[in-house]
């Protein structure tokens, strides 16, 4: 029972393209997979370290631009560049996290917010390297040996394999010693410290992992779209990622999965109501946060459990 959701979800992901008629949705689903990776990582930070980052778009952007520059400008091979970009992003996150996470309170929000603004400005101003406001084009696509990921369908399976892998690793993590320590420190920091948990180091580690996951998504994004521009990495995307965490449910890994999918696909579905789509989007967000403050997924699960109990 406990292990059932994962294979069921995986089968669903494998089967979905077979019943989808429109390739347009495939592209939206591919972006959704990357958002899943970012949002699960961000939720580890928000749900388990009690900290908020408003800079995840910047880490996403670092991954994308590092991949773009290192492969296109410097000619490095694509696959090793992706973990290298993650490592560089991790170091950057570490340098931000060390001073801010040692202090009590929400200094990380301010630091990451500022960082995102700076990264965004650098992307625009440093046009010799980044291509400036008009963006960076010609990023090589992903391929393994002779096999090129040259269609949305191929990318779909690759990205969702990555997303499901991140899901599995995160589920493993929260059911491990480190995961319990994270849950402990997010719930009661003093008790956690007096129980022997080095809460400061844990918070920094979670933040670094979280940033590295955003970087991974950024690299994959760059090699998929093959063109990137600063607009995708502004503070608004950071806010969107935070919203996905909140809608899915803080501290729920499955919630993040559904929050990310839901809010990634919602604008596509709302396309038919064109002028009002921002309005409808905002209204749905507000309603969710007002009526299900713990998030949609935990609320839905409690409801299902209650229904099952009623029947038996």
């Amino acid at each position, binding site marked *: 029972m406990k292990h059932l959701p994962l294979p069921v979800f995986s089968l669903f992901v494998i089967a979905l393209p077979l019943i989808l008629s429109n390739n347009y949705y495939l592209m939206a689903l591919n972006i959704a997979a990357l958002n899943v990776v970012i949002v699960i990582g961000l939720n580890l930070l928000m749900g388990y370290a009690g900290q908020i980052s408003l800079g995840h778009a910047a880490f996403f952007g670092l991954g994308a631009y590092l991949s773009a520059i290192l492969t296109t400008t410097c000619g490095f091979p694509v696959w090793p560049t992706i973990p290298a970009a993650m490592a560089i992003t991790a170091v950057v996150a570490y340098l931000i996290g060390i001073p801010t996470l040692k202090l009590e309170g929400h200094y990380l929000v301010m630091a990451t917010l500022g960082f995102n603004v700076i990264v965004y400005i650098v992307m625009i101003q440093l046009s010799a390297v980044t291509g400036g406001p008009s963006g960076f084009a010609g990023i090589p696509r992903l391929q393994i040996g002779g096999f090129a990921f040259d269609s949305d369908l191929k990318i779909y399976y690759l990205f969702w394999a990555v997303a499901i892998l991140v899901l599995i*690793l*995160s589920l*493993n*993590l929260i*059911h*491990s*010693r*480190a*995961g*319990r*320590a994270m*849950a*402990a420190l*997010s*719930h*009661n920091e*003093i*008790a*956690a*410290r*007096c*129980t*022997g*948990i*080095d*809460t400061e180091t844990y918070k920094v*580690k979670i933040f670094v*992992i979280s940033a590295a996951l955003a970087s991974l998504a950024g690299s994959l994004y760059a090699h998929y779209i093959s063109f990137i521009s600063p607009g995708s990495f502004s503070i608004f995307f950071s806010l969107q990622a935070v919203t996905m965490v909140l809608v899915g449910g803080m*501290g729920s890994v499955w919630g993040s999965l559904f929050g990310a999918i839901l809010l990634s696909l919602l604008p596509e579905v709302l396309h038919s109501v064109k002028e009002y789509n921002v309005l409808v989007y905002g209204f749905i967000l507000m309603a969710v946060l007002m009526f299900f403050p713990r998030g949609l997924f935990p609320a839905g699960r409690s409801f299902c459990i209650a229904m099952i109990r009623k029947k038996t």
Partner: protein
Amino acid sequence: MISPADPHMDTAVLEAKNITVRFEGLEALSRLSFAISPRRIVSIIGPNGAGKTTLLNAITGVYPIHAGEILFQGKSISGLKPFQIAALGITRSFQQAQLFMNMTVLENVMVGMHSRTTSGFFKGMLRLPSERKEERIISAQSRDILDEFGLISKAADMAGHISILDQRRLEIARAMAARPKILLLDEPAAGLTIREMEAMADLILGLREKGQTIILVEHNMRLVMAISDHLIVLHHGVKIGEGRPEDIQKNRQVIEAYLGKKV
């Protein structure tokens, strides 16, 4: 001081030397010195605001001490962080139970084993065999502890859903999961009924029986006098008396300051 130090006492496992803790002008502990012998129940008593909880917070590194020194097994622990002090072997319960309410009873005890175990993020993510093995050991030992504390039937309950007595038991179980050299208890019987208090007294005595060193902060004089080996009396952050329970009961200064009509 009331009675001279017991000549048969073993060397002190914990020693405070002239420690002072201040809060903006208020001296919550002033030049306090004492020594704790192993395998005893040493109780800290004193009226509200005497500085008892502050003392436990100073020992566990939650509050910094402004002067003096605390020695644990002969080495200074002043300036260490709470997690380091816990790892060295000093764990505690809190005046207001501080459980991890978002976890089950079993998981609370499993967290208590944190400092005795090692698996980190990557082992946990990848479920490496060594991590699985450690996890099985943690789980089995935690169940043993729950069994010992009479909580095994509630292992899967959420920590917030069990009775007050059970929550206090669980907090002690979690602290004991670290296999501490010294266990600190902050008013473990507060809010309990007479019968529950007796159960708590038995539990604490049972731990001492097994050789556990315990520092107990407790308001209830009947309980304190019945189970303590040694008492330290605090008043306005100053030690005003120390000795065996029967000696303390005879001490006039202590009676006036604290015990009053109760004795």
